[in-house]
């Protein structure tokens, strides 16, 4: 087993170091206290990965080969910089409020939980849900780690770029014009792959798959922690996390290596931080929003679109905070895309042509999308809509659902621009792109059941 286990151990140590670095920085993004613990662990992984993504091009720009020494220096700088930020503040609970009151501006939150409700530590339901979540994580880990990452898009796009950056210690000119590798895609994931390889000293596309189950764990921690903080009972938050943990259209062997799993994590971080920032839940919300916006813009093109959608939602719902929140949602995403300019594509996008759009093609796209899912997917969507209808009208849930709807609409409309026809793009991408919305959709639905 040593051929695989030793590199896996090396990768694990590197990822642990990233998370530890993220943890040291997270104190200025996520407030202290037990209510934020689960979220802080998830955010730590995100911050660590984000730092490594930034580390690789920073090193290359100064002509240095990325290595542990450089990373430790950058990590120390980043931790020092984060420590210099103002301490996080938590709004006071209202007069007469109890410790169970969700943190934040009380005007925007649901009433506190009745005494004893939503608790029941060690109850059979909670134990069962915890076991279910752990089993879901273990099964995805088995799927992700069975063999070296193999999906077509990993071989042709994400892995190819990461392996090339690592092997060439730079970004060769030809990657800007290699059409099948989509030079117009952002480089966050390839830089993460390259960064892990620089730290472990070799390109191992099997051990590196460990990144993905850890993205799943971080997603579940943030989902559970955020829902609990929003006043949702442990049972509902656990049920939501268990459903996401077992959602195979996202956590599959096929999607391991592609951008959807990290993007789904980033979208959840972005959505949760957006509604926190709109509600002024705590002093770290705007920082979390800015970081999440940068992360999703670095991972996929639709990250920038979601940042724009989030900014528009902020302008609509943000009241006195609208500009501050909108700027935090959009500014960092735009900055990340601007930072891609030195590595930008030298060729026009081959798959899409704005001139092709027509009402007829949009209809074709919608028709192809309607034909795609089988009955289990339609049944699942029906149950999701039922849950939305049965839930309370919680502002946070409404905003998250709008964000999900914006992304889903984009995924159905964009194929109307496809050169090879709307049906082709729908059939090749829609199921996996919409699967990446699952954690955010789970948060949007579950938050409508506070205190139950």
């Amino acid at each position, binding site marked *: *087993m*040593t*051929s*695989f*286990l030793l*590199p896996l151990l090396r990768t694990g140590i590197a990822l642990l170091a990233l998370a530890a670095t993220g943890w040291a920085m997270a104190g200025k993004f996520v407030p202290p206290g037990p209510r934020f613990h689960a979220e802080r662990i998830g955010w730590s992984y995100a911050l660590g990965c984000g730092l490594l993504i930034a580390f690789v091009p920073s090193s290359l720009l100064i002509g240095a080969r990325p290595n542990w020494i450089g990373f430790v220096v950058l990590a120390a700088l980043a931790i020092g910089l984060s420590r210099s930020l103002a301490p996080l503040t938590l709004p006071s609970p209202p007069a007469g409020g109890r410790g169970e009151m969700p943190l934040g501006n009380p005007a925007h939150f649901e009433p506190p939980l009745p005494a004893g409700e939503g608790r029941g530590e060690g109850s059979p339901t909670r134990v069962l849900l915890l076991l279910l979540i752990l089993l879901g994580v273990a*099964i995805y880990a*088995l*799927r992700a*780690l*069975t*063999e*070296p*990452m*193999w*999906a*077509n898009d*990993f*071989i*042709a796009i994400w*892995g*190819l770029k990461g*392996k*090339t*950056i*690592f*092997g*060439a210690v730079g970004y*060769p000119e*030809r990657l800007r014009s*290699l059409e*099948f*590798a989509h030079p117009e895609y952002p480089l966050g994931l390839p830089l993460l792959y390259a960064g892990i390889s620089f730290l472990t000293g070799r390109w*191992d*596309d*099997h051990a590196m798959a460990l990144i993905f189950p850890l993205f799943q764990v971080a997603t579940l921690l943030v989902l559970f922690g955020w829902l609990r903080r929003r006043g949702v009972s442990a049972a*509902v938050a656990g*049920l939501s996390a*268990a*459903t996401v943990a*077992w*959602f*195979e259209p996202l956590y599959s*062997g096929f999607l391991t290596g592609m951008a959807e799993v990290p993007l789904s994590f980033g979208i959840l971080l972005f959505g949760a931080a957006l509604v926190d920032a709109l509600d002024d839940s705590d002093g770290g919300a705007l920082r979390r929003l800015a970081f999440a916006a940068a992360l999703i813009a670095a991972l996929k093109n639709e990250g920038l679109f979601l940042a724009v959608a989030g900014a528009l939602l902020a302008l609509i719902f943000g009241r006195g905070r609208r500009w501050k929140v909108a700027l935090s949602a959009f500014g960092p995403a735009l900055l990340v895309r601007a930072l891609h300019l030195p590595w930008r594509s030298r060729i026009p996008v081959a798959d899409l042509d704005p001139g092709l759009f027509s009402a007829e093609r949009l209809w074709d796209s919608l028709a192809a999308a309607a034909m795609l899912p089988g009955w*289990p997917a339609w*049944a*699942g969507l029906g*149950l*999701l809509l*039922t*849950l939305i209808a*049965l*839930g309370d009208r919680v502002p946070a849930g409404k905003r998250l659902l709008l964000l999900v709807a914006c992304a889903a609409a984009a995924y159905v409309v964009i194929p109307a621009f496809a050169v090879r026809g709307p049906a082709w793009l729908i059939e090749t991408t829609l199921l996996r792109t919409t699967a990446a919305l699952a954690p955010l959709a789970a948060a949007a639905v579950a938050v409508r*059941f506070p205190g*139950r």
Partner: protein
Amino acid sequence: MTRRAAAGAAAALLLALVLASHTWAELPRRARVLAAFAPKELAVRRLGGSGTAFDRRYFSFLENVRRSIPPSAKGVVIVHVPDDPAHVYLANYALAPREVTFGFATNNVRVSGVIVATYGPPFPPDAGVLARFPEGYVEGPFP
């Protein structure tokens, strides 16, 4: 039925649907594959994996080419390979970070500093051949 009970039933049904949709049958096979391949080197694990299932002999060829390329080589031209996307993508990935191009006849692609890797027979005489293996041979780098 109260709203709360209906929501609980819908949520439980959704979880049951997600669990029922799982491809359970593949899990024992995955465990067996992992146990069988984990002791082997990385290239063998990829050779036995899904990404090379369309043409395992081709990946074996690419791996042999990768191992025989001298550090001085500027790039690799691959000859006599089907030009479908799967073959093109895998060659670029397996030989990264080197630049990979595709040719159809060995004589037309002898560029200075470049390795020419030919997939399959006929095998030429030994002169000028850098390495030969069951799936093909490598020539160059050319002056």
